[in-house]
């Protein structure tokens, strides 16, 4: 067993174990922390696959931003824990059966006969002068520059949508109030002002 295999199996074990702990966790905050552990293992696996930029991005963007956002929301909302597990036992056998069938089928299809080292040999490791970021940037800013800009627009839309959804104080918002419009009286809108006529002033 080579050292790469040992590292792979350790990381896979932690990835699977933390995922299982995540879905069975009773406390949502603990589930987030287990998912963070899972993402760290996934990032380490990606480094094993020589995708360094994406591994760092996973940790910075996911663990640093998205998971913290999850924690914020969990701490902000007061979740009733007793209602969350009402149907736990009812759906577990069905879910397990479906998952085991899928895993068995996938193992048959993706096993060593189809994707093993004989069929798809491991590529040669890159030297120290190879930069994953340079290669990705060359692709991203030439071939995929249009999807890259679309992704930027998508993130802008997400920001605007999220802020608009949760914005509480309606400052400067043009809004219609139908009940006020129906109940309006003439004296609310029309003001009678007595003005001295100019002909009297001339006398």
């Amino acid at each position, binding site marked *: 067993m080579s050292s790469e295999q040992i590292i792979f199996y350790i990381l896979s074990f932690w990835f699977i174990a933390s995922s299982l702990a995540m*879905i069975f966790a009773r406390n949502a905050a603990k589930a987030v922390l287990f*998912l963070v552990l899972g*993402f760290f293992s996934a990032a380490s*696996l990606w480094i094993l696959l020589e995708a360094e930029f*994406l591994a760092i991005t996973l940790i910075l963007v996911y663990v640093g931003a998205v998971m913290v956002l999850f924690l914020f929301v969990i701490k902000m909302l007061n979740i009733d824990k007793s209602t969350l597990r009402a149907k736990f036992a009812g759906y577990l056998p069905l879910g397990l059966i479906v998952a085991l069938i899928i895993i068995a089928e996938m193992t048959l299809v993706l096993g060593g006969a*189809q*994707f093993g080292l004989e069929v798809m040999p491991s590529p040669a490791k890159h030297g120290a002068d190879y930069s994953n970021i340079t290669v*990705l940037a060359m692709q991203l800013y030439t071939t995929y520059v249009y999807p890259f800009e679309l*992704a930027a627009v998508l993130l802008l839309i997400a920001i605007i949508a999220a802020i608009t959804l949760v914005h509480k104080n309606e400052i400067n918002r043009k809004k219609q109030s139908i009940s006020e419009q129906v109940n309006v009286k003439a004296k609310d809108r029309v003001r009678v002002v007595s003005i001295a006529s100019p002909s009297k002033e001339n006398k």
Partner: protein
Amino acid sequence: MVSLSDYLILSSIIFCIGLVGIFINRTNIITLLMCVELILAAVNTNFIAFSHFLGNEAGQIFVFFILTVAAAEVAIGLAILTLLFRVRGSINVDVTNSLKG
């Protein structure tokens, strides 16, 4: 050496764990969102494994875009969740049945 099928089987196991999580956590929207994240992580691992073994960087570009879309999805999903909690006082899925679908 680690073969491609090892990575593919690992990501299929993670995918199935995410699926079981959606099955058993049906009433909790936050955990549902986290299970979706888990499934996306499995898919991303698939993309990167194929990209590594085929020597083609396009798979890593795809993972980049998947990460972008997933971040946007989480932001909007949690915003809707906050709004739902503000209106209903609960994030239980069983409470949100006004459409009677």
